[in-house]
């Protein structure tokens, strides 16, 4: 699956797979103001992130708006071999979302 917002890398080593994911997202808290117009920038943040391997969730995360802009996350799970797929998807508070998959290296 192609995705414009997700960059994901997965590397297998010693029977473990490390996943590194970068999601392009403004993660607006709703408290910032546009510097030119002075208008409040509406709250817009990722609420849910799921990473799965072989159809089973490896990590499910619930986020608030205080996760940094363009969130980066990394973690490790046992198993996984080069050539297999890891999937990641996100959903934000405005109904936006995307998913992407990476081949384990």
């Amino acid at each position, binding site marked *: 699956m192609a995705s414009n917002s997700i960059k994901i890398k997965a590397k297998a080593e010693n029977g*473990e797979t490390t996943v590194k994911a970068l999601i392009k997202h403004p993660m607006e*808290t709703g*408290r*910032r103001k546009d510097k030119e117009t002075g208008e409040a920038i509406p709250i817009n943040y990722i*609420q*849910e992130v*799921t990473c*799965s*391997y072989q159809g*089973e*969730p*490896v*990590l*499910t*995360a*619930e*986020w*608030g*708006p*205080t*996760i*940094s*802009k363009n*969130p*980066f*996350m*990394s*973690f*490790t*799970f*046992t*198993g996984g071999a080069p050539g297999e797929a890891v999937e990641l998807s996100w*959903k934000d*508070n*405005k*109904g936006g979302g995307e998913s992407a998959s990476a081949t384990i290296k």
Partner: protein
Amino acid sequence: MNTNMKRRLFLKASLASGAVGMAAAAGLLMPRVVLAARSEAAFKAESVDVAVKESMGSDSMTDSGEVTLEIPDNPENGAVVPVAVATTLTGVESIALLVEKNIKPLCGVFYPGKRMKPALSIRVKVGESADVIAVVKSGGKLYSARKAVKVTIGGCG
């Protein structure tokens, strides 16, 4: 069909999709892989105790050496503070990350699957110098670690 009819149809359609959008935002249509439904009360909470209670089911935490937090001492830019949390505890049900003085302290709750090692790295916003707190739920009990972080540029404005 005249223009007026088209307009009516368009209005109807956009109203309907608007309602679906709102339902999705409220979590009604989201597939639930998490056992516990997202607790909006936890994310809206303005104190660490309430946020922990709403997200982890209890607010009695024990400081534990089995939970480690790695954060640069002086990250300067509060908008991007790298945090690494790890634990040697087993049977981890969830991990919560909080920043004590943020207006809404709860940053995120992580539910490791069976395969995942209970450790992860992420970046959070720190509004002003404050303690970052990690809470790990294992065997129904809460274990925590905290670390003071000094920021020179707040990260929530």
